[in-house]
């Protein structure tokens, strides 16, 4: 399959296939960046895939005190789901259980516009048991909910975008686990510099890429055996003999352009690291192009 080699790394002539999703964003602040990050991490810990978690979510960027509504350090979190109703449910459950509970936290809308609105504080305010206070400041409305360390301040709503894209990906292949991981880590680090994208898997990396379907009833997805190095001799493997480890980066973005930009940045980082220290080959996952509307051809992204 490889037709293009850049800096000694084979780039498959293939494309990543991605899907339309609904997405929202919030900004979590706290007295310190450590506690803002803690709340963000807690609310996005179990949010790697819509298949089993209801949504895909992760911290997108750190916000300086000058960039947040209350002048405290913050973290912007993006959430993606397949429907507005599911996104609303995931947002309020996760903010209610993980942000409201986190010491000193406050929570604000992370999108300034969109096709629709989601309840944020409007869903959480009932925790105040009647002691909650609303405060409208210009076009924005905030809830103040009394809690044991003071008040939980939460903006009433946040916006929802229907232009989001989920499922952009890179499949990174190398001759050892360590080198493959090094290349993938470099790619994730570069992708974090791109705005409006998240990589929802642990540390941005998935080691258990899946295919659609299973031999077992009731399982909608199962291991991507064509990319499992220990099955190279047993299946019609996609891997050549020198490949011993494969990792995947899944990218969700608020726009298709953001996903493309992140894939471009990731590829550049892998290529820059080179085959001696990193990957031998990069591919991408798709379903033949029939399921997802967004196709990202690797050859277009390395030019």
């Amino acid at each position, binding site marked *: 399959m490889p037709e293009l080699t850049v800096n000694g790394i084979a780039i498959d002539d293939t494309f990543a296939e991605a899907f339309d999703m609904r997405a929202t964003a919030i900004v979590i602040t706290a007295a310190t960046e450590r506690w803002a990050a803690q709340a963000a991490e807690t609310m996005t810990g179990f949010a790697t895939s819509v298949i089993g978690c209801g949504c895909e979510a992760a911290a997108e960027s750190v916000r300086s005190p000058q960039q947040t509504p209350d002048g405290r350090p913050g973290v912007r979190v993006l959430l993606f789901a397949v429907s507005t109703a599911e996104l609303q449910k995931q947002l309020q459950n996760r903010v209610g259980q993980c942000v409201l509970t986190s010491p000193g936290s406050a929570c604000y809308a992370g999108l300034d516009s969109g096709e629709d609105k989601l309840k944020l504080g409007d869903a959480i305010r009932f925790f105040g048991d009647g002691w909650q*206070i609303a*405060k409208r400041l210009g076009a924005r409305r905030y809830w103040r909910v009394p809690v044991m360390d003071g008040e939980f301040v939460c903006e009433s709503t946040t916006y929802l975008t229907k232009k989001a894209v989920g499922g952009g990906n890179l499949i990174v292949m190398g001759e050892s686990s360590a080198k493959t991981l090094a290349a993938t880590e470099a790619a994730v680090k570069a992708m974090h510099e791109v705005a409006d994208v998240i990589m929802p898997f642990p540390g941005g990396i998935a080691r258990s890429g899946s295919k659609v379907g299973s031999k077992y009833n009731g399982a909608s997805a199962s291991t991507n055996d064509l990319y499992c190095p220990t099955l190279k001799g047993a299946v019609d493997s996609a891997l050549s003999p020198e490949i011993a480890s494969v990792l995947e980066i899944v990218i969700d973005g608020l726009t298709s352009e953001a996903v493309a930009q992140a894939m471009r940045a990731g590829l550049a980082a892998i290529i820059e690291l080179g085959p001696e220290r990193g990957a031998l080959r990069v591919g991408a996952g798709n379903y033949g192009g029939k399921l997802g509307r967004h196709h990202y051809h690797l050859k277009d992204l390395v030019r």
Partner: protein
Amino acid sequence: MTPLTFSLRKAPDQRLDLSPLIERNLAGKTVAEIERIEVGTTRIRVAAGDVFRIREGDPDTIVIEGGSARFDRVGLGMTSGSIRVEGEVGVEAGRMMSGGQLTIRGDAGPFAGSGMRGGTLDIEGDAGERLGGPLSGETVGMSGGLLHVRGDAGPRAGDRLRRGFILIEGRAGAYAGSRMIAGTLAIGGQAADLPGYLMGRGTILLGRGATLFSPSFGDCGEHDLVAAQLLANYVAQASAKLARLLRRPLRRLAGDLAALGKGEILLPHAQ
């Protein structure tokens, strides 16, 4: 853009109702037509041209040169544009306004900003009693917008305030924020007796406390409130002095517990 200018010829002989002199009423009219607009309030008829020398200009920007305590209802019901009065005004300035900018370069009489729903009312002098408050028979006072008084305000400022901001840089008379429904009233100086009397919800900031507090407010202690930072950022657009007060630790008094009791008086930590 040349403003439409009304220059006072001489002190008026009767109270004047200047509510017709807003953009919505004047757009498309010639100076001669504007001069014929009735502004009198007694049996002696007075037209705008009798009181003012009118210079042609854009009615979106109106300037009234020379003020009088007999200029009533300036900017009543205005929805857009700007009106600037180079002097004092009488009662009900900016009453029921819903947009635009009304600037009074002097004192304003009672009921300034009464029932206003939006826009900005800026009073550079003092304001009379019941700033933003409802007239008799009305149930709700100011319900939106920004009312900014650079000087002092009379009794019952913010009576029945429902939404929006009233900022008073100076002192306030008795019963400031009486019967407040919600909204925010910030007073830089000292308030007279019983601020927040029977308030249900809302926030009253008192930069220098009050001469007497109602016993029906409960002391909730001193706090660094995140919400106060949001308030401060918003208030800072109009008043740096009041915003600074909100950035200090604040003592919170909950009340009025003789009414709904979900309002608050915030007292900045003394420096």
